[in-house]
C-alpha cells in the first residue's frame, strides 16, 4: 500500500463532505481533514498485521446461538400509540405530512 493511498486530499475531502450532506466553514474543514489524516495513520497499523486467509470478519464479538437469539416477531401490524407525539417532533408538519422544500429532479445517468 503506498503512502499516497492513505492521504485524504482536499478534493477527496470535498467529495466526502458532499456525500455526507454536511456544510463546513473553512476552519472546520481544515481541522477535520487534518484529524482524518492523523486517524488514517493510526489505522495504517492494521495493514501490517498478517491475516491468514481463513480468518473471518467478526460483525460482533459475542456469538449468537439459536438459544440466546430472540425469535423473529410475527409479521403483524401493530398500532403505534405514540404516533402523534412522534409527528409533533417534526420541525414542520402540516395536515399529517412532513413539510420539506422542493426536491430537485435529477436525471440518472
Amino acid at each position, binding site marked *: *500500500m503506498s503512502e499516497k*493511498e492513505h492521504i*485524504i486530499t482536499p478534493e*477527496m*475531502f470535498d467529495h*466526502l*463532505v458532499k*456525500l*455526507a*450532506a*454536511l*456544510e*463546513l466553514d473553512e476552519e*472546520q474543514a481544515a*481541522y*477535520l481533514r487534518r*484529524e*482524518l489524516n*492523523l*486517524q488514517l*495513520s*493510526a*489505522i*495504517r*497499523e*492494521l*495493514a501490517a*498485521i498478517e*491475516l491468514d486467509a481463513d*480468518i*473471518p*470478519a*467478526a*460483525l*460482533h*464479538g*459475542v456469538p*449468537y446461538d439459536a*438459544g*440466546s*437469539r*430472540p425469535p*423473529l*416477531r410475527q409479521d403483524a401490524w401493530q398500532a403505534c400509540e*405514540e404516533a402523534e*407525539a*412522534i409527528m409533533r*417532533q*417534526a*420541525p*414542520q408538519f402540516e395536515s399529517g405530512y*412532513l413539510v*420539506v*422544500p*422542493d*426536491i*430537485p429532479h435529477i436525471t440518472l445517468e
Partner: protein
Amino acid sequence: MSICDLSAIEIRKLLLRKELSAQEVLESCLERIQVVDGRPGALEPAAITPEDERCVHAFITLTTKMARAQAAAVDRKIASGEEPGLLAGIPFTVKDIFCVKDTPSTAASRILANFTAPYSATPVERMLAAGGLMLGKVNLDEFTYGSSSESSAFQPSPRNPWQTARVPGGSSGGSAASVAAGEACLSLGTDTAGSIRQPAAFCGVVGLKPTYGRVSRYGLIAFGSSLDCPGPLARSAADAALMLQAIAGADARDATAARREVPDYLAELEKNIRGKRIGLSPDYFQITYPQADTGEYQQQPLPQEMRAAVLHAAQVFRSLGAEIIEDVPMPNTRYGIPAYFVISRVEAASNLHRFDGVKYGYRTTQTVNELQQLYRKSRGEGFGVQPKLRILMGMYVSAAQYSEQYYRRALRVRTLIRRDFEAAFDPAGRYRLDALLTPTTPTTAFPIQDVYGDSVLMQYADQLTVPANHAGVPGISFPGGLDGEGLPIGLQLLAPDFCEATLLQLAHAFEQATIDEEWRQRKPQVLEGR
C-alpha cells in the same frame, strides 16, 4: 455524611425498615445537587466563571417534579405493605443518550436539543418500574463521541469531583461525576470503547460494561450498534449488582438482547473467591502513544503508579485465595484502537444519517430552496465537530474502493482480538482464567483542555478498555487507589461472556479486603468538609 452518601443497598434496607422515606432520600440528593453541581449544561455560550470551575456540572436536565412524584409513590407502597421494587427509593441519573418519555433527550448535541422523547429506553423503563427515582439526564460527549465529556454542545461540560480542573472522563462523564459527588447513588451509562469504565476510573467509582446483549439497547441513541452496551455506574460493586439485576435480560424490542437467564447477582456477590484464576497480561502493561512531533506510534511501559496498583490488587486477590496466572498473552490488544477507528466510524456514520432536519431535531433557520440544501445546512449547523469527524471517516473507510483494505480488514482483526479472550478464558485451555486483571486507563484523569482537539490522542485514552468492546466480553472498573496527586486509579477485570457475576464478586471481595486502606478514607474535592 448525608443520606445521599449512603449506598443504594443501605438506602434500600433503611426504606424497607421504614427508618427513612424515599422523599427524604430524594431531598438529600437534590440538596447535594444544589450545593455541588452549579449551572446545568446549556447551548447558549457563556464564559466560564471561577464559580463554574469549582462545580461538577453533571446535569443537562433535572427532572425534580417527576422524581418527587416517584418518591411519593414509593413511600405509599411501603406504607401499605406492597412490594416497592428492587430499586425502591434509590435516586439515579441517566446519561442523556437514552430516550425517556416526555423528557428532553439531547445526546448532548444541538441537533437533538429540542427533541422530547415519545417513549422510554428499556433499561430506564426497568429502573423506574423497580421503584428507582430518576433525578435527571446527565451530560456526556456529543453523541458519546469522546473520552473527556468536553465535546458536549451543552457547556459547561462536567468536571471531575476529585479535582474540578480535571476531566471526569467520558463519554459517561456526567454519570460518573454525579455518582462520585453523591448527587445520585446510581447512573445508567453506555460503553462503546470504555465509556462507562474510563470515567468510572477517573472519578473513583465502579463502572460495569456488561456482555454485549446482556442489557437491551432499545431506546439508546445509537453510536456503534455492534459495540454499544448500557450498564451501571455506582459507588460499590454491590450497588452495581443491584442495578444490573434490574436492567439485565431479554427484550422483545431489541433483537440483540440475549435470551439468557439473569443470575441473582447479589447472592453471587458474597461467594468465596478462593480458587478463582485471575490473569495478568504483559500486553496490558504496555501503552501505545502517538508522538506529537513525528506522528509515529511508540509503546511505553505503563506509568509506575498504575502498575503498582494492579500488582497490589493481584496480591490482595492472592491473599484471598485466588490463583494469579502471569504472562497471559493478549497480543492483539494494541490493535484495538486502530480497528475501532474503522468499525465504530462506519457504524456511527450509518447511525447519523437519520438526522436530517426533517423528521425531528434541529432544522436550519436559514432560507433554503431545495431539500439537499436543507440537509447540508441542518447537519452542518446541528452537528459539532466530533460527529462530523466520525461521519466523514466512516464514509471514507467504507467506500467501495477502500472497504476491503480498511473496514473488512478491521472486522477480521476484531476476530483476532476475540480469539485472544477465547484462548485466555478457555476452560480446557492453557490459562483457564476466570478473569483478567488490568489497569482501566493508561493515566489518571487529565486536565481539562489538555487533550481535547487531538482526536487521535483522545481515542488512545480507551486503549485498555476497547478490546472488550470488540470481543463483546464484560468488564468492570473499580477503584484501586489514588496516585501521587490524589486522583483515583481504576482497575479493570474482564471475564468470559455473561460472567458479570464473577466480575462483581471479585470487585466486591477487593473492596471488602481493602476497606481499611488509607486511600479509601479520602473524599473528592467537592465533598471536603461535608
